């Protein structure tokens, strides 16, 4: 008769905060919330703009408040972290790039994509600074 009595160990319910790659994953995913929140701020601005000059002025007032400045700094840090880690994940989500019969290394894809993202952001900042000079 079989003596087999397989024992299933429970999964650690806090695996997502285990030090190392699991915590890095959780932080990467959490930083996506910063992107969503920043989108919500922009959306609120748009609604205020549609609602009339009074609403728009109060939105601008909110933007100038210390709470908003701290919030924007925190969100900026979150978004920058998200962009960095998003492009680190990018090579894992796309088909292998074969150039001249050889596979392009993941690190190179990440580096170039991050440079393009940084370049686009810089161009956007320059355009915004020029428009509001």
């Amino acid at each position: 008769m079989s003596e087999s009595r397989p024992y299933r160990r429970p999964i650690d319910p806090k695996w997502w905060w285990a030090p190392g790659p699991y915590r890095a994953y959780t932080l990467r995913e959490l930083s996506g919330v910063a992107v969503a929140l920043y989108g919500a701020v922009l959306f609120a601005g748009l609604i205020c703009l549609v609602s009339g000059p009074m609403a728009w002025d109060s939105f601008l007032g909110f933007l100038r408040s210390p709470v908003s400045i701290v919030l924007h700094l925190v969100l900026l840090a979150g978004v920058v972290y998200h962009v960095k880690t998003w492009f680190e994940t990018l090579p894992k989500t796309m088909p292998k790039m074969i150039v001249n019969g050889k596979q392009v290394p993941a690190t190179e894809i990440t580096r170039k994509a991050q440079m393009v993202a940084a370049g686009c952001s810089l161009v956007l900042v320059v355009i915004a600074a020029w428009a509001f000079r």
Partner: protein
Amino acid sequence: MPDVALAAKTVQLKVLRYRPGQDAEPSYGTFEVPYTDDMSVLQALQTIKDELDSSLSFRWSCRMAVCGSCGMMINGTPKLACNTFLRNLPKGPVTVEPLNNFPIERDLVVSVGDFVKKIESIYPYIIPKTPKTVEEGPYLQTPAQMAAYESFSDCINCMLCYAACPQFGENPAFIGPGAMALLQRYNGDSRDGGQQKRLDTIHGEDGVWSCTAVGVCSEVCPKQVDPANAINQNKTNSAFDFFLRFVRKDAR
């Protein structure tokens, strides 16, 4: 094999034991093993079995990271015991446990039946686009066409990726990284025409969609197979297939 009684230096191994006939649940057994600089964790386990406790059960075969038999949790990380050397581990006791996320059969031996069924489910062989007779010659392939899938063919079925995957831990029905790497090995092969057949096996929560791109599967892979890439490529394929299934020529 070093002599236990004459050893100058020893290392302590904490091994998770489970004997189904006598234990209700697993518990740790501690062993002092003679230490040498060139010793792998597998050799330490063999020393225990040969000289200290012959009842200790573990799988091994090739001793050179080719067969994929000796996967286990070493200090909490899934590794092959044969290419993990004691000298590279932090000082202090070494914890050795069976692979996470798998039912334990005995000591360090886990059940592999479900994994084998998953491998079988994805048609793990080439389904030629147009079958040829021997007279018509071989199926040709350029180096670039081979590079598109070659790394996925390096998988040794050691299941370290499954032990690293929290989503497989949460949902044992999830097809998981190893089987998906094998699927991509065939789907990415220019000679193969079975893509649709395989894609049909991986839709849904138990298919690719349990994966949340944690990515640790690729980090622990001893053969740099990058199963996370195989899964995530096929999320795109699965999503396309969902939207395009009505316009496919062979739509059912």
